[in-house]
């Protein structure tokens, strides 16, 4: 039954039955949720993303093996044994041996280590240059910004592979040359991203409010701009690392990257490719590892982006 105020059948409720209820203003404003920082909230969201967690574990495992396996192995990555070449997996050589009788288990993890090192270092240099370049470009504005952006466009216009190959030919081969070559163009994406983020924030109201409260340029950068850009940077790094690893593998595969007896995933894939008919397993190990690395970094990067910047979720 719907009771309306005018229902004639209803007896009037005597006034003394009513007790005044006052709104407690502090109770109204109370936040019952537990206090979390934004980072912890992000972690809660990341925890719900099972795929990203599994990939994070896989990455941790791969890194652990890459660090420890070459150390505890009885072989070194360059130690040859012509009595035992191209052996299939056995108790002595868990993954078998290659054309020169080198232990593949050791070489595989050593190669993973080198690939990870190249990926991390290239990403680190990319962040450093990219963030600095992007931030300066956005903060200075005007002519400086225009010149810096045109420079980037010229760099993007030249195929990066040509630049990388030029570098590789000009400098002595080795890990550091590869890292340097990868850094020549790798920072562009980061610079653009940081610039866009800072430009967006410069017009945001909290930055204007801070200006009105007399916040100086450096304090503004330290207190407002950097903390709000960190998320974007971390996420970009998660995509920069696998791309550096992949480029290195590609260079080594076509023969202009690392040279024997150095090992990296690309070198190993190249070796495996040459004996694909007789010992296909030699190609499988490094190929699977590189796929795992790429996929895991991408999924963790996606997960981080969704967790820490839910607005960007697409």
């Amino acid at each position, binding site marked *: 039954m719907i009771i309306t105020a005018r229902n004639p059948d209803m007896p009037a409720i005597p006034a003394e039955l009513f007790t005044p209820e006052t709104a407690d203003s502090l109770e109204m*404003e109370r936040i019952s949720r537990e206090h979390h920082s934004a980072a912890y909230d992000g972690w809660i969201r990341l925890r719900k993303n099972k795929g990203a967690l599994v990939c994070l574990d896989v990455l941790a495992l791969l890194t652990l093996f890459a660090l420890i396996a070459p150390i505890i192995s009885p072989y070194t990555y360059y130690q040859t044994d012509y009595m035992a070449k191209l052996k299939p997996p056995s108790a002595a050589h868990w993954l078998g041996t290659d054309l020169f009788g080198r232990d593949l288990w050791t070489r595989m993890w050593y190669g993973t280590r080198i690939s990870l090192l190249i990926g991390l270092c290239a990403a680190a240099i990319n962040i450093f240059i990219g963030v600095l370049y992007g931030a300066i470009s956005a903060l200075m504005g005007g002519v400086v910004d225009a010149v810096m952006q045109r420079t980037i466009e010229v760099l993007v216009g030249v195929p990066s592979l040509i630049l990388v190959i030029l570098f590789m030919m000009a400098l002595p081969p080795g890990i550091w040359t590869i890292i340097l070559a990868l850094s020549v163009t790798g920072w562009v994406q980061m610079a653009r991203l940081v610039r866009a983020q800072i430009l967006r924030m410069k017009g945001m109201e*909290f930055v*204007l409010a*801070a200006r*009105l*409260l007399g*916040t100086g340029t450096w304090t503004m950068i330290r207190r407002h701009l950097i903390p709000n850009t960190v998320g974007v940077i971390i996420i970009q790094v998660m995509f920069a690392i696998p791309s550096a690893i992949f480029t290195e593998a590609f260079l080594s595969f076509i023969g202009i990257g690392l040279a024997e007896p150095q090992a990296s995933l690309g070198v190993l894939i190249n070796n495996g490719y040459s004996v694909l008919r007789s010992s296909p397993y030699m190609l499988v190990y490094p190929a699977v590892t590189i796929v795992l690395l790429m996929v895991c970094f991408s999924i963790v990067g996606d997960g981080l982006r969704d967790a820490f910047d839910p607005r960007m979720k697409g």
Partner: protein
Amino acid sequence: MAGALLEVNGLSRYFTVGKRKTLKAVDGVSMRIYRGETLGLVGESGCGKSTLGRTVIGLYEPTAGTVRFDGMPVSPKRGSSLALRMQMIFQDPYTSLNPRMKISDILAEGIDNHRLVRSKAERSKRIAELLESVGLSEEHANRYPHEFSGGQRQRICIARALSVRPDFIIADEPISSLDVSIQAQVINLMRDLQDEMGLTYLFIAHDMSVVRCISNRIGVMYLGSLVELAESEALFAKPTHPYTQALLSAIPIPDPSEERGRHRIMLSGAVRSPIDMPPGCRFASRCQARTKLCDEREPELRELAPGHFCACHQSNCI
């Protein structure tokens, strides 16, 4: 009336759009705001209300004209004494608080910048005071902005503006992104604070009934210039400019029988583009009382009755 706290003289702010095209967002606005009053500023979207507010406070450099605050000129590179006396409340409470900072640090930003307190204890005492003055409590100080509702955030923004004890606050559509029930709360808070601290407001909004409720005087803007400026009641009783008349006729009356009889002036014609405006009255393209004079000469703001200014060739007396 007592001396003007803020004097705006022929203030213009142009933006360059593309090649050799200028957008006249604010074009030759002159007005005075007196100590302790609330001046409401209304107008449709894109008429330059916010730009005017931001130019007055020095966030934008004026293209022409001057702003004097308490007798001193305001320039973009303001001295700290002025910075403390003018503050602003922004439209969107979701983007006006830094998501990475705790409420206590947000509120103390101005205090820290200008070393207004001597000790940590004094700092937290001041933060608690500020939170209390906007109806929040001390325990909110350690939380982050994302934990608050829109209305709470807007009150935090008010508290932040108050943190440096300003005389003058520009409120740039402070309630338009809030729920109606929360709007009343924020408006009432702003009025209480005004009585308590003797604040002066420039209240920018597009909701006529809200502006009527809070303002002593109201200015109506159209395409970058002030078309009418009058005491709040005088404006509602006798709107003089055709644009103001149309604007007021659009306000719904909260009484069905009267609402049925409400005559609404429907404007036809397109709003002129603020880019490369032709000479003459800005409103001419939509005005019903348009004459040849309106196309030739731009009307000046004239005082038709004491305190009632209007910029229209056709309205000679009230």
